[in-house]
């Protein structure tokens, strides 16, 4: 675990995401009970549950990228020798940086231009969709970091590098 990531807080996305997930869970369960036992539902319940869910998704997405736990097809990396593996890892990180950067840019424009308000509570959708912008910003940062790290690894003499597992967290 590097100092850079430690500084950012290893699992801070998961801490915040857990709070959102907890909120979603409590609201959905509460909804069933109020409907059955008190014969009413809060008109905002579904909206809040789904909004918190969106936050959960994007925070989890950023963390899953950071920890190398996104599902991928590991054909090439499993077949290549170590040197080649590092080169592929560098390329992969670079492509991800580009994609994530582009997504960050357009989602930022989308969110800042959004005038939609939610149906029940009449709040701006910006408060929900900003989670997507944050996720892509984080992933762009992480992938730049991984690009640099894997680029360095290409040139380091084989036995100087400690064996690192696939998981980065």
């Amino acid at each position, binding site marked *: 675990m590097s100092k850079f990531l430690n500084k950012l807080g290893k699992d801070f996305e*998961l801490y915040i995401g857990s709070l959102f*997930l907890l909120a979603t869970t409590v609201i*959905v369960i509460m909804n069933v009970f109020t409907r059955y036992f008190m014969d009413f539902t809060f008109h905002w319940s579904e909206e809040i549950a789904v909004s918190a869910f969106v936050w*959960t998704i994007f925070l*989890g997405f950023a963390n899953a990228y950071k920890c190398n736990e996104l*599902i991928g097809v*590991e*054909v090439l990396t499993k077949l290549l020798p170590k040197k080649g593996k590092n080169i592929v890892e560098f390329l*992969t990180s670079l492509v991800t940086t580009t994609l994530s950067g582009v997504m960050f840019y357009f989602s930022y424009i989308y969110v800042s231009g959004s005038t939609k308000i939610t149906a029940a509570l009449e709040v701006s959708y910006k408060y929900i969709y900003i989670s997507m912008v944050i996720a892509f910003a984080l992933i762009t940062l992480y992938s730049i970091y991984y690009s640099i790290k894997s680029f360095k690894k290409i040139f380091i003499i084989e036995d100087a590098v400690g064996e690192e597992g696939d998981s980065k967290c």
Partner: protein
Amino acid sequence: MLAITPIIILFVLFFLNIPIAFALMGAALFYFTFINSTMPMQMVIQQFVTAVESFPYLAVPFFIMLGSVMNYSGISEALMNFANVLVGHMRGGLAQVNVLLSALMGGISGSANADAAMQSKILVPEMEKKGFSKPFSAAVTAASSAVSPVIPPGTNLILYAIIAGVTVGDMFLAAYTPGILMTISMAITVAIISKKRNYKPSRDKMASIGEIIVEFIKSIWALLIPFGIILGMRMGMFTPTEAGGIAVLFSLIVGFFVYRKLKLEHIPIILMDTVKGTGAVLAIIASAKVFGYYLTLERIPQMITEALMNMTSSPFVLLMVINIMLLIIGMFIEGGAALVVLAPLLVPAVKALGVDPVHFGMVFIVNIMIGGLTPPFGSMMFTVCSIIGVTLEDFVKEVWPFIVALLVVLLLVTYSESVALFSLNLFR
């Protein structure tokens, strides 16, 4: 030709080991930047984010959470003891317990990898003590874990239902039949191999009725969860999403107060596991939506339907072609991802030939689980081999009879609608 460039790019990105979510995004971004730039990017982003802003998808984190709760709540152990009194006296006892336990656990959560990992850790060491070889134990564990996602509830069943536009309830009810058939086929395989190699039972004699009742009562709370989910949804008491929420609440109560294994400090771990898992799954769904938007604009699903219809007018041949294709794709791509990307393409085609979409769902769900067991890139294969410490080579030597058994079930489900939809028709 230009229209299919994004598909080629998708495969190149897959091959480069770009995470599936980003590969889908990359292919779609390429299309909307270079091929069809009339569409404003805002539309693309909107497709992406609104895809996951959906109440039905909220069922996904709940069922992921349920699997995590199970590991900490003592539910797994209760089910294991119950499985042992039921089948432990048979030849190859613990291997049979392994198969039955996967089915029972599948009735609560339904992640093949979680099931494979859990059993590799707690059941396989016991199996080794009883004289089972490591590769065989690994093979049974991986193969039987293919049952967990098929037996409802399960995330793949929910995803397919949303994609194909059928009800989650129908998918859940129907999936019992293939799930149970898979369990039986693997129990038979274990029995045959155990007889040949003379694997010992895990108990000296059959459990008495009294013992069975004792273990049944101990695990009744866990066994109630699937019934509660199905019954509640059937009676219209709650939606699939709410069913997931209630099941989480119920299993927490069971874990805290009945088995008393669950501690408050487990809650943050469970939540954090779920956040990460949810992010990984739903990122693929969101990206697949954007990729699907490209496919729709270029009328690719219609082209595929037409091409398949020109090739054959027989559902029999069509399903065979699709099965073979899915089996090959399943060797490389994780099942859930294959489902999200391919089901929107294939469901219209099979519907056009008169195949019931729920029936096709059963075929799809069973098929993609088999890929998890096959080299070069089966996810359950990797899970068990790395935990137990078996080489892929040894694993493959032991797992093939199980793959054959599962293929038999796949054929049965594919070519007999009355078998595939047996449990659904029973209740419909």
